[in-house]
Each structure stands twice: as C-alpha cells, then as structure tokens.
C-alpha cells in the first residue's frame, strides 16, 4: 500500500487557465447560459478539515484510511472531472492556509467563475474558528458573485454519536445563518450536509451539490419517474460510474441505505468486469483505463437479494449507469423493463444531442415525446 499519492498531474499553475470566459451575470441556471462553461466547484475550509481527503476519496478512489497520510495541500489543486459525459465540472481544492481575498490572489477570477462553494467544517474540532472563516468567506464571495451556491459540509461526523450529529448540525446551522442575518445577507442561502469519508454520506452530499449544477435535472427526473412508474420499479438512480455520484434519481425520497446498496453494486460490477471484461479501448488516461474498460454500453447486471428485492444495473452511456431497485415479482416482466430502458436511453441521448447542438432546452416537453409510449403487456 503506497501512501505517496502523486497528485502532480492535477496541479495547475494558479494565474493561468483563463479560458473559461467572462463571468456569467445571467440569472437562473448559470451552467445553461454558457454551453461550454465548465461548472466550477470550490472546496474550502480551514486547514485539516478534510478537503483534500474528500477530493481523493470521491474522485480518486483513495481508501479513506490512506488519507491520513496525505500531506498538507500547499497550492490550489484544480481537477477536471471530465470523464462523465453529462456533467463536466471542475473541482478546485483550495488550501485553508491562504487568504484568497488578499491582494496576492485574483479573487475576482477565483470566485467570479465559480458555481458552487463547498465549505468543509471539521465537526470533531472546535468549530468556532471555522464558523468565523465560513462567514468571512461566504460573505466576501457573495459580493463577488451572487450566483454561487453555498454548501456546508459538516465533516468527519463518523466520530460523533447520532444525537451529537443532529445537535451540531442544528447548532452550526443556527449560528451560521444568524451571522448572515446580522450581516444583512438574508438572501444568501446555505445548505448543510453531514458527511464522512468512511461511509457513503460524502458521495451523497457531493451528488446533491453536482445535481444543482446540472440544468437538465428536472428533465432527467421526469424521465426517471416515467420509467419507474411504467416498469414497476421502486427506486432508480442514474450514476456516474467512476465517482459513484448520482446524477439524478426519481422524485421519491432517497433512502440512504438504498443509495449505499447501489454504490456497492457498482463496486461489485466494476470489480468483476475489471477482471473479466475485455480491454479494447485505450483512449483513456492510464489511471482510469481499468474502470473504463470494465464498462461498455452492453454492461448489465442483476443481483437478487434474499428479502425479495432485485437490483438491476444497465449501462446507459460510457459513464452513466442506471441502477434500479425493484420487487422480485416485478422483475418477472424483464422484457418490458428492458424495452422501457431502451426508450429511456433514447430519451437521454436526445437530451445529450440537444445539449450538443447548444439549443435551449425547454424543460419537460421534448422529453415525453422522446420517451415514447411504452407498451403495456
């Protein structure tokens, strides 16, 4: 086990990289106004709060234990999460030691082109300082770019009891919003998540952050709703396979356990196909080659659980997989599900093509047409 994770390839010189165009001053969905604009997510927080660990665990499959041996990040680490066809976004890991509103940094550039700001608070530490820094950062960033979505990760909650978790979330929520109200920033909305790299909560929280940056989310959700209602499925997730972030799910509430179950299923399928899959495509960077090869659009897996539930995985595109949870008796009509899935995939492709031709998508309408009418058997 090597703990020396070479992260050189993510390091990009800070002043460079200006090619994302001017700030977006439009209203509503920032990502849709500029088709080529890559949504940018900033990871901020005090030193040692776990920013780099989050990035490593979510995007590099580093084992959570190994993050203990990460050295402190001394410069901004920018990373493009590009291998996912639907969301192409950037994650910038910003060291907590630096003051980005200092004259040494181009804060206009950093926050101006940013879409979401994740502020990580170490819940095991005394979070007094973190709250002060949170307030400072958020209020300054808001002045520069009011369109930023502010997310607060109450991190490292694995060390806390359930009661304590709730308490600290309430406390942090209360204090942070009070501070903002005192400063006259009522319009600034903060979202809070309890996260830990030792379970799936970090993936879920990141999923929600990413989902906010996808303008087509309502479309996808609608698509999934139609799909599950017509196929007798209980819950369906559209996953980015590599990061295990779910891009979209149907409108029914997400149960943490079923999400974890789906993540585990992806792991199982990945592991098996890495061993037995064919290795044809070498167009990917070597470090991701393994995973890419494992999956292709024909990938499909069924796992039957002993409580009468079936998990069904189908690959949608190279990077996206649909994972469904359904009752065993619904699965008897697999042909219908497959046909519906085929329609669903067609719908997704149309969404992509629309996006490619840079046409404005009017939510919902095109969808139902693209979906077609699934036959009832």
């Amino acid at each position, binding site marked *: 086990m090597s703990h020396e994770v070479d992260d050189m390839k993510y390091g990009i010189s800070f002043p460079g990289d200006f090619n994302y165009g001017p700030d977006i001053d439009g209203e509503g969905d920032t990502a849709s106004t500029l088709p080529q604009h890559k949504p940018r997510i900033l990871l901020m927080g005090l*030193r040692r709060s776990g920013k780099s660990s989050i990035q490593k665990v979510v995007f590099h499959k580093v084992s959570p*234990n190994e993050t203990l041996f990460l*050295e*402190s990040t001394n410069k901004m680490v920018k990373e493009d999460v590009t291998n996912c066809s639907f969301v192409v976004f950037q994650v910038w890991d910003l*060291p907590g*030691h630096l003051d980005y509103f200092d*004259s040494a940094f181009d804060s206009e550039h950093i926050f101006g082109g940013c879409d979401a700001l994740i502020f990580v608070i170490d819940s095991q530490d005394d979070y007094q300082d973190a709250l002060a820094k949170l307030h400072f950062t958020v209020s300054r960033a808001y002045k520069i770019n009011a369109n930023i979505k502010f997310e607060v990760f109450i991190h490292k909650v694995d*060390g806390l009891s359930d009661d304590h978790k709730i308490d600290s979330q309430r406390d942090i929520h209360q204090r942070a919003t009070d501070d903002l109200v005192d400063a006259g920033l009522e319009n600034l909305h903060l979202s809070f998540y309890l996260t830990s790299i030792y379970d799936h909560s970090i993936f879920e929280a990141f999923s929600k952050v990413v989902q906010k940056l996808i303008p087509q989310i309502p479309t996808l959700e609608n698509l999934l709703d139609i799909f599950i209602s017509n196929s007798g499925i209980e819950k369906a997730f559209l996953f980015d396979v590599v990061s295990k972030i779910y891009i979209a799910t149907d409108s029914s509430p997400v149960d943490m356990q079923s999400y974890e179950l789906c993540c585990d299923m992806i792991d199982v399928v990945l592991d098996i196909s890495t061993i037995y899959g064919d290795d044809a495509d070498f167009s990917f960077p070597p470090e991701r080659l393994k995973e890419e090869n494992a999956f292709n659009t024909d990938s499909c897996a069924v796992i039957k659980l002993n409580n009468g539930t079936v998990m069904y995985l189908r690959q949608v595109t190279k990077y996206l997989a649909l994972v469904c949870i359904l009752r065993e008796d619904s699965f008897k009509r697999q042909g219908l599900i497959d046909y519906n899935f085929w329609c669903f995939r067609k719908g997704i492709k149309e969404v992509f093509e629309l996006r490619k031709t840079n046409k404005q998508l009017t939510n919902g309408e095109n969808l139902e047409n693209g979906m077609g009418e699934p036959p009832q058997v």
Partner: protein
Amino acid sequence: MNAIISLCHFCELHGPKVLFCTQPFHPEEKTVSAGDSETEGADGSIPSRRHVASSAEPMTPQTPTHNSLPNYKNDLCEGCTSVHLGFVSHDEEAAVSYMSSQRPQHRDVFAMVRQACIRSLSCEVCPGREGPIFFGDEQQGHAISYTFYIKDYQARGFQRLYSVIVVMMDKIYLLNSWPFLVSHIETVVEHLKSKASVVFENEKVKMPLRQYRLTSTSVNPKNFIQQRGGNVNKPARSLNELTDDKHVFKVLHTSFVWILKACGNRLSETLLEGPPTEDSIIDMEKQEETEEGFVKLFSKKLGIDDDLELGLDVLSNPGTNPGDNGTIDEVVEDDGSPEIIDIRHIYKLLGSRRFHVLAHHVVIGNQIILRGKGRTLIRTFQNALTWLLPKGCYRAVPYSDEYVESYRCNFLGLNPAVSIPSYVNTSEPFLLVDIYEPEDVHLESPDPFKGYIFKLSTFFDLDKVVAPSVLQKMEHAIVNDSLSIEVVDQCLICLKEEWMNKVKVMFKFTKAGGGRSEEDAKNLLKIVGATDDDKPLLSYWMRGLSDQYKKHILSASRQHVL
C-alpha cells in the same frame, strides 16, 4: 549583487511564510525601517549597521495581512520563526554589509519577498515538485525559486515544503546568473535535506509511527481525535529541530552571503556605446593574449597569410596596456629631441605635397623608414602616422641599429649610421625619411623643429599612381584648420571604420569560395564604392582585420562550401 535571498516555508498553521532573508546593504544608502506604526516612528532610518541588527527583532511578530483567522493571526509558531536578531557580515573591501533576519526591514522589499514567497510555495508549479523555476514581473520583481521538501516524521505526509527564492529587479542579470545560482542553491538545499533525513531515519527507528497509524485502531474515531490532539500542541517544528543543528541559520547566513557576493563578482556590467570598432576588437585580442602574464608576443592564431610573423614584434614589456591608442609606450627613454604632437603637425612640417607622398605610402602599406638621431622624435613621428592606419596594420620597430625587413614591420626607426641593404633598395617598395638635425641647437627657440630637415627618398615612385580615395578625405580633414584635433581624430576613425567594412566585404569575397572572375571583382568594387586605385589599400588593410573576424569568415565559408 542587489538581490535578496530568502528561505520560505509553507507552515502547517500559517501557510506560506518568509523564514529568513539575507540582503546586502551599501553604507551610503539609508534604509527606512518597515512601518512607522510598528516601531513607533523612532527608528525612521538606520544609520549604523549595529542598529540594523538590534532593530530586527521587534517587528517579527507582525504579519501585515492576515485577517482571516481569528485566533492565531498574529502569533508565529516555531515552524515559521528562524532567528530573533539576525546576523550581519561586513565586507570591508567592497564596503558592503550583508544582513540576515527573519524579515526584510523595508516595507516594500518585504511586500515583494512575501509575494514571491506565496507564489513560489502556493502558486507556481515546478515540474517534478522540487527544483528551480523563474517567475516575476516588473512591479513585483523577478524571482528564481527553488522548492524542496524536508523530511519531518511528525508532519502530515512526512514532509514539509520549503523554498529558497532570489528576488531581484533586474531580470537580465538574474537570468544570466541562473546557472550559478541554481547550482549553489542546490548545494545548500542538499545540505539541509541530508541533515534532515538523518534525523528522520533516527526518529523512524525509535517510533514506527506509520505502522502505528495504520494498524492500530487509528480508524476508530475516538483514537483519531486523540492522535490529532497530540499533534495540535506542536504542529510545526523548527528547522533547527528538523536538522538537529543549532547553527543551521548561521550556516545559511554564510552560504547566502557567499552566494550574493560571488554572484555579484561573477558578472560585471559595462556600458557599451555602439558596436565595437575593429580597432577595439584588436585591442581586446591583444589583451587576451597578455592576460596570462606572458610576454606580449602577438602571434596570429591563424597563420593564414603570414606564417613568418612569429613573435618578432616584441612590444615593449608585458605590463604595458596596449589599449591606449595603440602607441608604443614611454619605455624608450626620452633623449630630448622634439616631439611630434599629432598628424597635423607632420603635415605642417612636411608641407602638403610631401605629406601626400608619405601618407600614400603609409596607407598602402609600404615600409616607412625613419632615419635620424632623435629617438623621441622618431617614436612620436611613428605614433602620429598611425592615425592613418587601422590598428591591426600597425607594426613598428621604434628604433633599431640594423635594418629590419618589411614583413616584420611597416614602421622602422633607424640609426643614421645604418644604410639600407642593397637588395632592399631594388626589391622592396619603401619610403625613407632622413631626418637631419640642425647643427647649431637653439635651446630657447620657440619652434623646436627649427632647422630640422626631412628628406623623403624612395625608389618606388608613386607620383603617377592615383592615391586611394579615402586618403583624399583624410587629407581634407587634416588640412581643414577649423576642425579641432579631436574632431579630426574621430573623423579619421570613422573613415577607417568605413573602409574596414569594405575590406571585410573584400575579404569575404576573396577567401570564401574560390573561382571568382575578374569581372566579379570589378562589380564588387563598384558596389562597395571603390575603384581600382583603392585596391592596394584594400588588400593591405585585410591584414588589419581581427583574428576573430577572420576565423569567423573562414569557418562560415567553409561550412558554406561543404
């Protein structure tokens, strides 16, 4: 060297910090201390060096801009402090003092260094993570930064990031010093790293922390907190501790001072006005040959056309500087005979017709033999004639008791008793100037040359030969009394340089690539603006080209042919 060298560190608690700076101070320059508010305005300037050292301490705790973190914004941990007072070294010879302290005294300098520090540690990416890079701009100064890791068993990732930066306003100077600076900074860095890795290995044996972190219940959250808590008290150890060397900053000070001083000595800047003339290049070549302390024999490195010319032109003694006007220096003792001041003086003594004959002989390279008693007179006569020739063409024997052949010298001073050998009379084109002194010496005469007679005789009559066109221009300048002698000098230099350029073209033409027809040669002459009458001058002046140029042309043409 007007640069500042600093050691920077990415502190676990405070981010990028300047640890240790060394900078030179010149005694005349008044240094304003950083920030009036910080030092209560009492130490507005630093008059004495001792004062510099003592005032270094009080301002260390302040960091101008760090308003983000409430609790530890002002304190500095062990990891980002180096020395309390600092060190001062005086270079008595050069009158420079080198001062090392935690931070530079001057506010602007500190801002520059701090900016470079942040860029070096947190912005710029060095390929391979450790090593040298260059960055900077006109406002913030230019910097060479060398980043490196020092092993620390208790640090996150088991290592800590440091960098050595050299900040300077002069970009050209800094980049020219790159090879020197980088190699020596490397030496300093290697020294620190090797010391630290010894400490690291020792600690590892004592306490296998990595194993402990992995195998123990460290994943257990409660344990995790304790482990973290253990580190919080002492998050960053000082460089002294990491290298187990109390004097590490003292060593750094001496290293930095040496680097600054040696780098300053390495390159010195000279003001160059225009491109060097052919004459000055020849001077430089002569100087090169004598630099080693040998007797100045200037043998041409490339014996192209004159193999015989081996070390015979002994020019006085090695100590002589050949630079001043290419004259032969006052080693020849003065014998009281009158001196010729300049070329115009000769003109006046000889009259225009005879001067023309003399000058004509000179510029086409015929040997001029001055026969007479007055050594000083002959020497100064020769010197004055050099105004007419490029330096490379000028080879003189100031005074001799026997005839010296023309391939050895074109100016020869002779004892009146010596006669020219008969074989020379017939074969060699030379001009003999006999100088007869007056019989009765009037010591008090206002004109020292009264009674002197100059007799020109030659077997090689130039009357029917048209003089080179440049000679007319030269004479014109010399005759024109409204020009001061300095102007005449400059004028002659220009004319010579103009014709040297033509000579260069001719040289290239003749030496580079064979098989040129007569027709080509004529066309070329036309193009450079010369006639057939100038040919003797052009071919003679080729000898005056610098070795450097000849070598260049020959190698270039050889390549061309190949």
